[in-house]
């Protein structure tokens, strides 16, 4: 259906992210399932109180790596319809979202699996870095373990 082509929506922004915004952007009449993953800022790390995170990105390469993830998802799960990946940059206060991935598909297993693949791969391949700012002690650049 040419009028209903799957869209890859990629956003890097310093604005607050919205689950409704992402969910609406991937909604489509022929899909029965939308899966969302929301990464939020935790208030603690190894007993230290985290006040906020600060994110920075190598923006053009991050966008290009995110487009590769969308393309990989479409190869692995051809029935996936729309993909929206938003990553916040700059300061992210505790409990606010740093990343939201939303994916729609006709049936639920594809979008659930694709969202998991998307966040796992984003953490492994997209040039974005976060620094944790603690209540006391030196800020620390983090490292994704997986």
């Amino acid at each position, binding site marked *: 259906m040419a009028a209903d082509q799957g869209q890859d929506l990629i956003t890097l922004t310093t604005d607050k992210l919205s689950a409704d915004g992402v969910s609406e952007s991937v909604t489509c009449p022929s899909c029965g399932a939308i899966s969302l993953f929301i990464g939020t800022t935790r208030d603690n790390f190894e007993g230290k109180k985290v006040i906020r995170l600060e994110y920075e990105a190598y923006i053009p*390469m991050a966008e290009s790596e995110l487009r590769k993830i969308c393309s990989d998802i479409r190869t692995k799960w051809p029935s996936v319809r729309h993909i929206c990946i938003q990553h916040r940059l700059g300061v992210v206060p505790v409990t606010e979202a740093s990343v939201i991935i939303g994916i729609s598909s006709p049936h639920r297993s594809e979008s659930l699996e694709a969202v998991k693949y998307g966040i796992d791969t984003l953490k492994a391949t*997209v040039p*974005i*870095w976060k620094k944790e700012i603690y209540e006391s002690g030196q800020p620390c650049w983090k490292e994704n373990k997986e």
Partner: protein
Amino acid sequence: MNTEQVSVLYFAKSAELTGLKAENITVPSNITSLQLWQDLETRHPRLSVLRDQVVLAVRQEYVPLCAQPLSLREGDEVAIIPPLSGG
């Protein structure tokens, strides 16, 4: 020996260690990624703490530190990529 001026971009901890976001340097066009890193360590000795963790990105593609020539072209962007922590 051909040389090229390339733009080096520093991110996250590498930017903190060098105090720079970016700089232009002139290097042999057939330099390997490992040699380029060693050149940068000579310019910025504090970068050495990242030696076992860092990779480069040349023209926005990842390149590990190794003995393969980079085939740099004038004006290429070389990014210093400390361990990722997006998400």
